């Protein structure tokens, strides 16, 4: 961890599932992530990287330990509270971008804005702005199905950035991309921390690890 107060603080956080048979997915671990820093979670397939990211992203609760975000306890919160938390603080970039194929780039980006009080004009301006940030302003009205793999990832990043999250979680953002495109995506993600957001990247890509302020290595569900 480099500098700053811990925005994310995990203490003894682990995950064990009971069905169909008791299985330990993630052994208890501690992790501090400072605001505005980048963390890369690496490890072999099935090691528990994505599980750790999903716990940090409040997508699933851990079975043990404590999780504090900006000093607030996350454990025991209702699903509604967790949804509101994700809506307010987190942005996600998934491995396969998960765009709605039949809708335009800008419509996909608009899905990332969950604030119902934002006017339509402000929303459109915001979407156009983030598309500009990822270099796709000219493709705002192109259908997602007609975009290349790199462009789709950029739209997914724009969607995650649309609500100005304080934490951006990216799961294998370069896994399905060729090397130059993957590098471009990593450069784009690096700009996120430059703008003050915290970046958590789950990846096998050594380039991502080299760029990170902190590297967390997970092997067989344990922090190595």
């Amino acid at each position: 961890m480099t500098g700053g107060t811990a925005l994310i603080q995990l203490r003894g956080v682990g995950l064990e599932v009971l069905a169909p048979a008791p299985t330990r997915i993630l052994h208890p671990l501690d992790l501090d992530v400072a605001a505005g820093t980048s963390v890369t979670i690496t490890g072999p397939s099935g090691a528990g990287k994505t599980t750790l990211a999903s716990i940090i992203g409040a997508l699933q609760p851990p079975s043990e330990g404590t999780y504090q975000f900006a000093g607030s306890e996350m454990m025991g919160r209702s699903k509604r509270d967790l949804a509101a938390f994700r809506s307010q603080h987190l942005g996600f970039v998934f491995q396969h971008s998960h765009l709605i194929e039949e809708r335009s780039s800008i419509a996909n980006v608009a899905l990332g804005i969950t604030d119902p009080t934002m006017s339509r004009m402000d929303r459109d301006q915001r979407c156009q702005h983030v598309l500009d940030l990822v270099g796709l302003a000219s493709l705002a009205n192109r259908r997602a199905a007609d975009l290349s793999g790199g462009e789709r990832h950029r739209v997914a990043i724009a969607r995650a950035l649309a609500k100005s999250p304080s934490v951006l979680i990216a799961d294998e953002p370069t896994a399905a991309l060729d090397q130059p495109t993957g590098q471009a995506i990593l450069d784009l993600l690096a700009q996120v921390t430059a703008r003050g957001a915290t970046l958590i990247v789950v990846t096998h890509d050594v380039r991502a690890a080299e760029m990170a302020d902190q590297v967390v290595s997970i092997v067989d569900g344990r922090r190595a």
Partner: protein
Amino acid sequence: MMWRWSFWVLAADAAASLLRRPWHAVGMMSGIMLGVASASAAIVIADTQQGQIDLRFDLQRSDHVVVQAENVPRDGFSADQLRLVAGLEPVSSVGEFSNWSDGEPVTRSIASTIATVPVIVADRGGLEASGTEVIHGASADALGDPGRTAIAWVGRELADDLGVAPADGQALTDSQIVVRGHAYSVAGIVANDGGFGYVENSVILSRPVAVSTVGGTGQNVRVVAHVRPGSAAAVAGYAVRTLDPSGDLTLMDKTPADGEKLLKDVGGDLRRVGAALGGFVGLVGMIAIANTLMMSVHHRLRELGLRSAMGWSRRRIGLLVLTESGIAGLVAGVLGTAVGLACAAAWCWLHGWTLIMPAVLPCVVIGGGVAASLVGGLLPAWRAASISPLTAMRS
């Protein structure tokens, strides 16, 4: 305000989701459309058929009122009393038409033929009201002529039997008949093709003539009124109160039943059949929309999981699916109503019926379609709201 904006954003999102998968939307809407179309067509056809039945029943319903008295003054009812009844809007004619005697021996003075026939005492209004027509001889106006005391009208069949009927194209000759020893000139021959067919085999006298010649106690005196079909029961009630305000005459309403209850029962049955048919097809449509929506939710697990991961609440995701369902129901309702009414109109046109449609029908069936869609969308909406945000992460 925020809620309203949020709703329109949700509605736009739901509409976009439907448009993204037009064939899914068509499949989803077809069930409800079929239900709404069937319901609207069934209701309109049932209503139209009800109108046809009303029309046919009107032709069968009683068009006359009969009030019978046990104890009538010798002079019968007064003209003023009868005028009160005649003044009613549905009444076209009214008068006395009494069975003075059920069987009197009648013979022609110059022949040996003897028949035992009823003697009817009537006035002009009574003949008109009973639908009795003078087909030969003097008109019924002469029934009120006090100067002509020994005249009678004879029914068509009796006239044939007695041989007083004129040959085709010939005028009535001067004939006489004898009733209970009294001779009467045959003033005219009458016929009745309606509900008083026994007139064809009867002798008709005026009240003064009957009292002075045949005699009698005035039993079973009847007043007959010709009325507009469907109004018989109401007129009969009024006539009884008007003709016998004190109740001394023991008046009885002898108006033939006009099938009012049967008509209502048949109409109710028709409506129930129409509603049951529409409801059943609506139920099928509801299941169809639930099924299609459920498949749609299954195909959109990743998208819905993504929305959940991005912070959409379960409520909002459920509302999104429910709004899709409602929009599909609204569109299907409008289209289904149009199709149903067009089919009903075509059916009525083919049968030469006048289309009868309740004014509120479109609103009711469209509302029903939307309601059925919303009910059908509840389970898929719950399923969608239950999708874990992890689905997006893992898929």
